[in-house]
């Protein structure tokens, strides 16, 4: 599903470079044993960047909740309305939440609690890839 291409900046460049390689990376603070997303300049818990680095995450997760978008102001997304917008919680750290359009899942047919796995989709404007999630078929 086409969406806006994110423009990487100094803070999230590693995240988007990894996405282009088909990898999901998150910030991790070794001092606090704490994953963090979205990216921040420092660990939100200890306030330091000293022990903050990027680590690869498995990308498996479950569907926490969702909404079905019928009327978005975002031009790139309008042709695909109605579409799902789900919140994914990662198995690696259940406090970490991502957004996903759940490619392959019809709008409104979203099972909360279902297991999902990460895939990477190219966005049209710049070709930048972004993580998406698909339901794991049992």
């Amino acid at each position: 599903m086409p969406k806006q291409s994110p423009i990487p900046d100094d803070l999230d460049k590693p995240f988007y470079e990894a996405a282009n390689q088909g990898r999901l990376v998150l910030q991790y603070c070794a001092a606090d044993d704490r994953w963090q997303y979205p990216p921040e300049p420092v660990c939100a818990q200890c306030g330091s960047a000293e022990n903050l680095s990027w680590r690869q995450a498995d990308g498996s997760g479950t569907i926490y909740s969702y909404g079905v978008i019928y009327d978005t102001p975002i031009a790139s997304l309008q042709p695909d309305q109605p579409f799902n917008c789900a919140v994914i919680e990662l198995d690696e750290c259940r406090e970490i939440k991502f957004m996903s359009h759940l490619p392959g899942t019809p709008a409104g047919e979203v099972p909360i609690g279902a297991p999902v796995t990460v895939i990477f989709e190219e966005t049209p404007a710049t070709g930048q890839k972004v993580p998406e999630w698909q339901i794991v078929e049992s």
Partner: protein
Amino acid sequence: MTAPTIYTSAAAMYRTTDGLGPWPYRGKVAAVGIGHSPTMRRWDGDPQTSIGAWCILAVRQAIADAGVSPDQVDGLVFDPGTSTGAYWPADQPVPEDFLAAFEQTSDPMDGLAQLSPEWLLKNMPELTNVKFVMLASHCMSMAVAATVEAVGRGLTNVCIALKGWHNFAGRYYHSGPNALPTVSGPGKHTPQSWAGPTSYGTAMQFERYTHKYGGSHDMMAPFVVNSRGNGLLFPEGYFAQHRNTPITAEDYLTTRWIAKPANLFDNDMPIHATAAYVFTTAERARDLQQPPVYVLGHGGGGTVRGDSYSPIASRSSVETLEEAQANAASTARRVYEAAGVSATDIQFENCYDGFSLFHVFWIEGFGFAGVKEGECLDFFQTDISINGPNPVSPSGGNIGSGRTRFWGWTDTIQQLQGRAGARQMKIDAHCGLAGAFMPIWSNFAVFSKDPG
């Protein structure tokens, strides 16, 4: 007139941390005057209905309502931002007739699409004694909290809390960054670029809520019907003035979705309107022309860092249901602690309803009418009307009167003064709660007929 001291931030006035104890000015500050502009859906281009003109109108009305003279007003607290999501188009010149109608500042947007102390005081020459001005961004709830704290601290004696919302032609948020094929900034990682509608976050939380506790979106119908019904009894409100038809349950259950489970009627409608209140000391209030309504305490949820006041940080990319519930509950604890009351003392509530669905979280967070987590949808099926034992949103809120976040403040004051007209509740209420906006960022106050 000596130039006033202008505080560009109200952050230091908010009570957003735990353990502050009772509000030291409990019962010592009172609301004594209310002023409202008319309403319209979008600005009609007449300078005399510009947001600046209507801010002046609301202030003058509040002063007259309180029975003070303009030269007795020594404080002003307001939000310099007046946008409800609509901005003056960059390629459109400011209308000459607007510029000619008012004393201008160096910024032609003043009075048109924003408000500055300089513009307001230049165009209200009768306010000869204003010494204290504080800018409280985002909504009337921030302005009221800052005002009552300022009066309590003795920074001002007769103070106006003011909020204006302009609205221009066009659908909101459809231009600018949302029209681009790319996205920059933190919105890349949030619903801002993945979903779009501002009600998405609440809709997602509500979907999780019904998954967790049971119930359905349909069970919101009595709340929305009740709110619009109350709004139609609010002569100052948009729908009473311009679209005087109720919402039926069938209307609610069949209208179009925006971000399912949030439909059209779960989203408030932007309008062009202003309101102002006069607050003063309890001692001064006794001599004025309206019955004083005493502030027992105030508190809120947010992050204060120096002069910055921002939402409570979520753990990740979106506020979860559990975070919203925790934020509502912690705000409620602070408000009750400040006011020296508990949920059983609150006889009516005017919590914010800009997206109707999160009113559930406020009711449960405050424990209004004894409602606990997971119980609110069932509670909405009981008598929540102004005629019943547990009036819910007697103002009708934004659902009832349009997007302003001030109907609840006006109604709470009017109810306790016995001036709510056709909306006057049947219960003999002594104590009510008002505030906004969402669990992630808010200010509330408890008001009472009695100072003690």
